[in-house]
């Protein structure tokens, strides 16, 4: 809890409403599209982006995108407004706004683009901004740990998802969703259907914190409250849900799709709901209900009938409204009363009436009371669960337990925190400034408004969203009262069970805590072990590969060269017979140079000091330079000679500081091995060189350079013209490498001193 306390500031009067204008404007623009969109008029336009890969930035505004844009911008406006008051004069509030805006734009991009590769880019941008926002208070160890956990989990899922996207694009012939939809039948029968589906699920299920990847989300809630309310409950974690909905018409409806999503969604739902009831920290409690809600949505997206998918979309909206309001309320409580601990708080409704009102409105919607949007959501949820294709009874049971526990959680938040005797840990809390209660109050009020006119919401928001990914949708009706039927009966049962759960919360929490402790593995623990294992493996691997012995590095390199180039040469039958045939008898000068080089080599091998060896090596280099010169390559000879000279100087500088060579230098066996290896490398390279030059060289490129060097490039030295004109891009890359290598070497030398 220290993480949030350090953000507290007592000057809440400062106008922080300015950053809220951007999401508000987006919301208003999006809202004006609602009637046209409901009439079936979709916007679509395309910008070329990476034409070479066929990636166009197609923007699509259909019912599903519009629903997400509305949620993102509305919750965004409330959160920006809230953050202004919450952060007060925090010295880094500009960084906060910058990151939050960057996140919002990425999220909007994610739900608007038609191309899956573009979607992936925005997807990863939300992952990155989420990482930076969770770690906003990076001076805290816990914040850094949680940020990294979220990044690694969702980032790894995202990369696997990229593989899935690439496979899907390969199978379908394009990465545009609008195109893939037309290929759906073929894709579902494709032999790579299952691997593709598994990869895409890995992305969606990690992002939306589904079992067994649910652990990162409650930990991510260590971020400041506005971030939790925005990213980790209302928007980013729903990116996975969005993707599942988008891909539903492409890959959905198969047994594999249904079984995976229903089973994982149900497990997430139950586990999240149970853990939520047993929390003391209000924020963690909301975090687990968010995990639960995401599970419910995933479970319903596993279905393929209209009621089931309608339930997913309705619950998405219901949840976004009440959960962001409740998060902001918890942030307000934390800010005003200095605690989020259930055992330290009580009766706050008396001192913070407006916040209490907002909390009650949101909580009643969460509990699913009649006249609230949550009631509609719950009714439609039971309808959807009963219409599930695969396991309707199972889904209904899960929904029943989840809803009952949600009712209990709603009860805990309202009754324990706002009702009863006044309790607070520090000084007497006061009502927060308008910027803090306005957002939650409006979000809560919207829940009531939608609850009273469900028909309007159904026709204008839910139905267009469902039709966008389920074109076969028959008539969708959201009604206040569906008559006396099974869903209504289940609602009554839910409320009853919820009340039982509320009063039995203490024993229930104890049982759950005991069960949790008794489990042999926890997802959190598995994550920690995997991280440790990676670190240990990396360390062991480095010890072996980078052990610091130059001799070993060179041995590895030379053995690799000898084998990798010697083996194909042997297989191609390039013996040394034809090799020698290509040689003319050496001239006197060549023979003399050869003798000098051989003599110098003998000195290198037999030298008793390093300096002597290096100088003799210089003679070898100079000898080869002479051969180049003799054969009419002055540029190569010049460069070779200069490099040799400088190498001797530089190596001599280093050698002056080294102790004398030990005697004997190495064991006889080692020496024999080295000799064999050296000879092998020399023979292989010489063999390749003669083999390559023995054939007819294609002189096309050379002829071009010869013809145009002087005419087009104003130079008669072809070598230089190639370097600085014809192929200057290569040279540019090379000098950058030279500069970077130089800096790295400089760093190494300075480190040692």
């Amino acid at each position, binding site marked *: 809890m220290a993480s949030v306390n350090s953000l507290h500031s007592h000057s809440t009067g400062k106008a922080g409403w300015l950053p809220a204008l951007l999401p508000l404007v987006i919301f208003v623009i999006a809202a004006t599209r609602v009637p046209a969109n409901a009439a079936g008029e979709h916007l679509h336009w395309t910008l070329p982006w990476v034409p070479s890969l066929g990636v166009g930035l197609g923007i699509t505004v259909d019912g599903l995108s519009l629903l997400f844009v509305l949620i993102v911008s509305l919750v965004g406006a409330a959160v920006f407004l809230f953050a202004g008051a919450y952060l007060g004069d925090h010295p880094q509030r500009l960084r906060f706004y910058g990151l939050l805006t960057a996140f919002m734009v990425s999220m909007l991009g994610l739900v608007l683009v038609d191309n899956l590769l573009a979607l992936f880019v925005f997807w990863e941008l939300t992952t990155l901004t989420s990482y930076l926002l969770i770690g906003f208070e990076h001076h805290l160890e816990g914040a850094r740990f949680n940020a990294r956990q979220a990044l690694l989990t969702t980032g790894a899922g995202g990369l696997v998802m990229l593989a899935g996207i690439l496979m899907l694009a390969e199978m379908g012939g394009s990465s545009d969703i609008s195109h893939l939809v037309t290929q759906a039948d073929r894709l579902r029968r494709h032999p790579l259907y299952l691997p593709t589906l598994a990869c895409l699920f890995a992305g969606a299920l990690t992002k939306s914190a589904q079992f067994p990847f649910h652990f990162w989300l409650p930990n991510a809630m260590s971020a400041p409250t506005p971030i939790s309310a925005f990213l980790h409950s209302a928007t980013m974690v729903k990116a996975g849900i969005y993707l599942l909905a988008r891909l539903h018409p492409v890959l959905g409806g198969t047994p594999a799709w249904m079984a995976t999503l229903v089973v994982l969604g149900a497990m997430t739902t139950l586990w999240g709901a149970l853990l939520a009831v047993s929390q003391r920290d209000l924020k963690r409690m909301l975090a687990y209900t968010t995990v639960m809600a995401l599970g419910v949505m995933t479970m319903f997206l596993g279905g393929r009938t209209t009621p089931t998918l309608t339930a997913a979309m309705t619950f998405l909206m219901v949840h976004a409204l009440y959960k962001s309001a409740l998060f902001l309320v918890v942030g307000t409580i934390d800010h005003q009363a200095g605690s989020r601990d259930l055992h330290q708080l009580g009766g706050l409704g008396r001192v913070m009436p407006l916040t209490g009102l907002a909390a009650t409105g949101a909580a009643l919607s969460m509990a699913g009371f009649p006249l609230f949007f949550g009631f509609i959501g719950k009714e439609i949820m039971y309808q959807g669960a009963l219409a599930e294709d695969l396991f309707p009874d199972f889904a209904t049971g899960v929904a029943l337990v989840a809803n009952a526990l949600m009712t209990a959680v709603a009860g805990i938040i309202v009754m324990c925190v706002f009702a009863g005797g006044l309790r607070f840990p520090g000084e007497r809390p006061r009502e927060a400034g308008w910027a803090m209660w306005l957002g939650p109050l409006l979000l809560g009020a919207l829940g009531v408004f939608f609850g009273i006119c469900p028909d309007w919401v159904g026709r204008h928001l839910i139905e267009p969203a469902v039709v966008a990914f389920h074109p076969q949708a028959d008539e969708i009706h959201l009604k206040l009262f569906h008559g006396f039927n099974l869903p209504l009966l289940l609602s009554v049962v839910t409320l009853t069970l919820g009340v039982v759960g509320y009063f039995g919360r203490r024993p229930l929490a104890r049982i759950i805590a005991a069960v949790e402790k008794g489990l042999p593995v926890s997802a959190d623990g598995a994550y920690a072990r995997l991280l440790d294992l990676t670190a240990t493996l990396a360390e062991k691997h480095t010890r072996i590969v980078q052990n610091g012995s130059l001799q070993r590095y060179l041995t590895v390199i030379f053995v690799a060269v000898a084998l990798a180039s010697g083996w194909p040469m042997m297989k191609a039958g390039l013996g040394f017979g034809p090799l020698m045939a290509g040689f003319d008898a050496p001239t006197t000068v060549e023979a003399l140079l050869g003798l000098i080089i051989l003599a110098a080599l003998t000195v290198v091998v037999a030298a008793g000091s390093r300096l002597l060896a290096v100088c003799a090596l210089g003679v070898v280099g100079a000898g080869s330079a002479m051969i180049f010169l003799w054969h009419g390559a002055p540029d190569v000879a010049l460069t070779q000679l200069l490099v040799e000279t400088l190498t001797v100087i530089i190596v001599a500088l280093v050698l002056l500081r080294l102790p004398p060579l030990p005697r004997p230098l190495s064991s006889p066996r080692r020496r024999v091995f080295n000799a064999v290896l050296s000879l092998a490398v020399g023979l292989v390279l010489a063999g390749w060189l003669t083999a390559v030059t023995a054939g007819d060289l294609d002189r096309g490129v050379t002829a071009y350079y010869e013809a145009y060097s002087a005419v087009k490039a104003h130079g008669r030295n072809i070598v230089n013209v190639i370097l600085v004109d014809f192929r200057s891009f290569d040279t540019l890359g090379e000098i950058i490498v030279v500069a970077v290598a130089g*800096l790295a070497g*400089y760093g190494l030398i300075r480190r040692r001193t």
Partner: protein
Amino acid sequence: MQSIILSSATRLLVGLILVFSVYLLWRGHHLPGGGFAAALVAATGFALFALAEGQEAVRRGLRADPRRITAAGLIVALTAGLLPLFSHRPFLTGLWGTLGPSLSLGTPLLFDVGVFLVVLGTVLTLLLALEES
């Protein structure tokens, strides 16, 4: 390594070596030479100077940190590449102008100067750091 003979000879030689280096750079487009070779020659000259007078003397003579020379070289080479963009030609296209009847000057020469500075700066960075340690 204090030696009067080395020190006096160096004073004469280093000047000559540097002049030769600039000559190599200048003639590189038509005859053997060029920025890379010229930079190596210049570096050899500075190395000789460092051996005779110590790396401090080289640093004083250079006036700039060799790492800055590297950076300047990259900037010069990039500039040579970017200039053609202003006349709507692809990156690194050679632009040429003639001075008098026979002398043509162009961005490839500028690019070569960049190569010269990068290589010289890098070699000196390492050389002086080694000499210093």
